[in-house]
């Protein structure tokens, strides 16, 4: 069902045109990579502040008020370019082990951010100047750093075809994790 849809999506003229374009695909991909500096870069600075190991004199609320809008812009650029890249080759990414791991970690990173903003950050005015923020905030910072680093690494590895379904034989766990449609062969 999903596969049929993705196969159809990948056969749409614009998907084919994007994948086969000489400059557009590399431009979208480059924008995706460079936006990392903005999105993950500003996120990481904020996380390091939460951990109490960077910008000790800058209040945490200054980060969430003044820098977060820039993080959001970075995130929007990453989403738009990321969706376009997915659209250029939907079925291949769907069956890519690294892409699947990346998506799961991406969701975890999002949940962590939501928990932080709905939770400990509500009381931020009380500890915004602390060199070392409360434990819950430090945990949120550490989880965020680890999760985004993993997203970056798995994202980069999507480009490699080591575990692609059409490169059989693959170990059993790879075929299962990638959801390779082996019965069709």
């Amino acid at each position, binding site marked *: 069902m999903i596969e049929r849809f993705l196969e159809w999506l990948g056969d749409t003229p614009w998907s084919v045109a994007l994948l086969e374009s000489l400059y557009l695909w*590399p431009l979208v*991909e*480059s924008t995706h*990579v*460079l936006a*990392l*500096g*903005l999105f*993950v*870069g*500003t*996120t*990481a*600075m904020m996380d*390091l502040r939460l951990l109490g190991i*960077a*910008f*000790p*004199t*800058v209040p945490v609320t*200054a*980060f969430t008020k*003044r*820098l977060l809008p*820039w993080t959001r812009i970075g995130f929007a650029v990453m989403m738009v370019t990321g969706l376009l890249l997915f659209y250029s080759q939907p079925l291949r990414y769907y069956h890519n082990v690294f892409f699947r791991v990346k998506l799961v970690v991406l969701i975890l990173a999002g949940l962590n951010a939501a928990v932080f903003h709905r939770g400990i950050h509500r009381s931020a005015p009380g500890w915004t100047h602390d060199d070392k923020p409360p434990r819950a905030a430090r945990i949120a910072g550490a989880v965020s750093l680890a999760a*985004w*680093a993993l997203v*970056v*690494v798995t994202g*980069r*590895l999507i480009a*490699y075809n*080591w575990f692609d379904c059409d490169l059989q034989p693959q170990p059993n766990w790879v075929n299962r994790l990638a959801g390779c449609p082996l019965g069709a062969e």
Partner: protein
Amino acid sequence: MIESFFRWCESSSIGRAVAESVWAFPILEAIHLIGLCLLGGAILVVDLRLLGVGLTGQPVAQLARQARPWLIGSLVAMVATGVPLFLSEAIKAYYNTSFWVKMSTLPVALTFTFTVRERVARRERAAADDPGKAADRVVGAVSLALWFVVAAAGRWIGFS
């Protein structure tokens, strides 16, 4: 002369080890990207402030001082991973225009960051919320532009 130096680079033991390994290049690349994230963050925090946006309300000098260890740390990580990446495909790099654009912009960006930008960012200001003079904005914009070229040309090495 230069070309033979690049050939020597590629035949070096590190260059061959990275080129022959399945995992070395991708792992180095991934760490290089993490370095890019940290470098981007450390540079943006100060440049945005110089441009009069971002962490306004914080003294520029203080931001620059506190960003410095992360700036230097991420640069070290990028060079430490960038050099073996280069060694593994030095001959390809030699014939790659993007590589030369990156490598000629990089020293300019580094010099600008550690001389002009450093001096301007650390200058004493009357008030913490100093809206920032035209010179600050120019320095912030030039820094962003230089590092943008380095990063974009760096990514393009793989496409051309």
